C-alpha cells in the first residue's frame, strides 16, 4: 500500500454547498443493482433462456402440444410465462431483500437517507422490468404460436390478439410481480420472501381443489388462479375476487412493508 499521496482533490470541502440528491441518479443506481451481482445475472439469463427454450419447443412441437387449439396468441404465451414468472419473481425479491441480508442497506441509507426515495426507485425498476419481461413473453408467445402453426401446417391467418386478453395478461403478470415486490419489502429476508411469493399462491390453489366450498372460499385470496380463470373464460364475475386477492397479496404487504422499511433500524 502507498503512504502517499493524500487526497489532492480535497481542497474544497463541501460546507453546505453540496448539490442536492437527484432522484434520477438514485433511479439509475437501482437499475444497475438489478444486474450488479452474479446471482442476479444468472437469474436474468435463466429467465431469458427459459423463455427462448420454451418458445423454441412450442415451434418444434406445436401440433403435439396444441392439436386442435385455437389460433390465439395466449396459447404460446401461457406456456412461456410459466418458467419466466418463477425465475423473474426471485430477481425482484432480491432487489429488495439482498441489501438487508448483506447489511449493505447501511451504505444505501447513508447515501440516500430518505428511504421513500429508495423504495420508489425500486418500485419503478420493478414496474419497468416487469413490463419489459412481459413484452418479451408476449412477443415470444405470438411468434412461437404463429411459427408453430406454420411449421405444423395449420392455419396461421387471423391470429386472435384481443386487447382485453392483452390487458388481462399484463394485469395477471403485473400483479404477481407486484406481490413479489410488496412481500419482499415487508419480509426483508430473501429465502422467506421467495418461499412466500412462489409457494403461497400454489398452496392456495391446492386448497381450492378440496371441494366446492373450499374452491369458492379460497378464490378470494387466489390472485394468480382467479386471474388465469378470467383470461381463459373471461368470466366477468371474478373481478371482486381478484380485487380482494390483490389487496391481500399486494396492497396490505406493500403498506406494511413501506411502514416497516421506513422505521426499521439499519444495522
Amino acid at each position: 500500500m502507498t503512504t502517499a499521496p493524500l487526497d489532492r482533490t480535497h481542497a474544497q470541502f463541501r460546507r453546505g454547498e453540496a448539490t442536492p440528491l437527484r432522484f434520477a441518479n438514485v433511479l439509475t443506481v437501482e437499475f444497475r443493482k438489478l444486474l450488479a451481482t452474479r446471482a442476479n445475472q444468472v437469474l436474468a439469463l435463466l429467465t431469458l433462456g427459459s423463455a427462448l427454450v420454451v418458445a423454441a419447443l412450442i415451434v418444434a412441437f406445436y401440433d403435439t402440444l396444441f392439436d386442435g387449439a385455437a389460433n390465439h396468441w395466449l396459447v404460446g404465451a401461457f406456456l412461456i410465462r410459466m418458467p419466466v414468472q418463477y425465475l423473474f419473481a426471485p430477481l425482484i425479491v432480491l432487489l429488495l431483500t439482498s441489501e438487508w441480508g448483506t447489511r449493505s442497506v447501511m451504505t444505501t441509507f447513508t447515501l440516500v437517507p430518505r428511504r421513500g426515495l429508495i423504495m420508489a426507485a425500486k418500485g419503478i425498476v420493478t414496474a419497468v422490468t416487469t413490463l419489459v419481461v412481459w413484452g418479451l413473453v408476449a412477443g415470444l408467445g405470438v411468434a412461437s404460436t404463429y411459427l408453430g402453426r406454420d411449421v405444423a401446417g395449420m392455419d396461421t391467418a387471423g391470429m386472435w390478439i384481443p386487447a382485453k386478453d392483452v390487458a388481462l395478461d399484463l394485469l395477471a403478470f403485473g400483479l404477481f410481480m407486484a406481490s413479489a415486490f410488496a412481500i419482499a419489502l415487508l419480509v426483508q429476508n430473501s429465502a422467506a420472501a421467495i418461499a412466500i411469493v412462489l409457494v403461497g399462491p400454489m398452496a392456495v390453489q391446492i386448497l381450492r381443489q378440496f371441494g366446492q366450498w373450499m374452491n369458492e372460499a379460497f378464490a378470494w385470496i387466489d390472485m394468480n388462479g382467479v386471474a388465469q380463470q378470467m383470461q381463459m373464460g373471461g368470466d366477468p364475475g371474478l373481478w371482486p375476487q381478484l380485487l380482494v386477492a390483490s389487496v391481500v397479496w399486494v396492497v396490505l404487504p406493500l403498506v406494511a412493508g413501506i411502514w416497516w422499511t421506513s422505521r426499521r433500524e439499519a444495522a
Partner: protein
Amino acid sequence: MITIQNLTKRYGDVLAVDDISFTVSPGNVCGFLGPNGAGKSTTMRCLVGLAEPTSGTATVLDHRYHDLTSPAAQVGTMLDASALHPGRTGLEILTQGAIVLGLPRTRVREVLDLVGLTAKESKRRVAKYSLGMRQRLGIAHALLGSPSVLVLDEPANGLDPAGIRWMRGLLRDFVSRGGTVLLSSHLLHEVQQIADELVMIGQGRIVAHGTLAELLASGDDLEEMFITRTASTSREGALS
C-alpha cells in the same frame, strides 16, 4: 462539527446509550473508545440516521443527517466493512456511490488510488476481499464526496501496521484542513496514536472525556482508566 446532546437509545429493557453528550470540533480527531457492546456503534448509527434516538439529539454540521443538502457528500461514513455488498465488485460499489452523489466517474479512480486499491482489485467481488481491503474500500466510499466530516467505526480493524500509519497520515491531513473526524475503536493503543481527544464509553455511559493531555494529566494510566472505568460502569449497571 458533531454535536451529541443527551442522546439516549433504548431497545426494550436494554439501555444501549444512556444520556451521553459530547462535541467534536473541526480540526480534531475524536476517539470514541469503549469495549464491545458499550454503545459506540449505536451512537454512530443515531448520528447518521440509521437509527432513531429514543431521546436527545445527534447533529452534524448543525443539522440532523437527514436534513443535510447531500448527506453522504458532506459526511463520509464507514460503519462496517460488511456493509458493502459482497456480490458486487469494489468498482461497482464506488461507481454506484459516485452516480448517486452526482460525481464524475474519475472520482472513483481517485479514491481507489488514495486508499491503495488497484484497478484489478477493484474489479473483484467484495466477497473475495480481505478484511483490510474491505476497510480500505469502505474508507474510499466515505471519501467519495470530499466530505468535511468523517464518521468511522473501527476504521483500523484489519489494517496492518503500514495501513494504520497510512490512515493516521490521511486523517491528520484531513483535520489539518479543517475536517472533523469521529472514529470509534475498542483498541486504546490505536486510538492514542491518532486522536486529539477521547470519549470513553462503557455500558452506554460516558466514563471519561477530554483531550489526551487532560486525561494523562490526571496521572492515571489510560489503559487502567479504560479498563476500570468501563468495567465499573458495567458492575453498577448489573447492581441497579
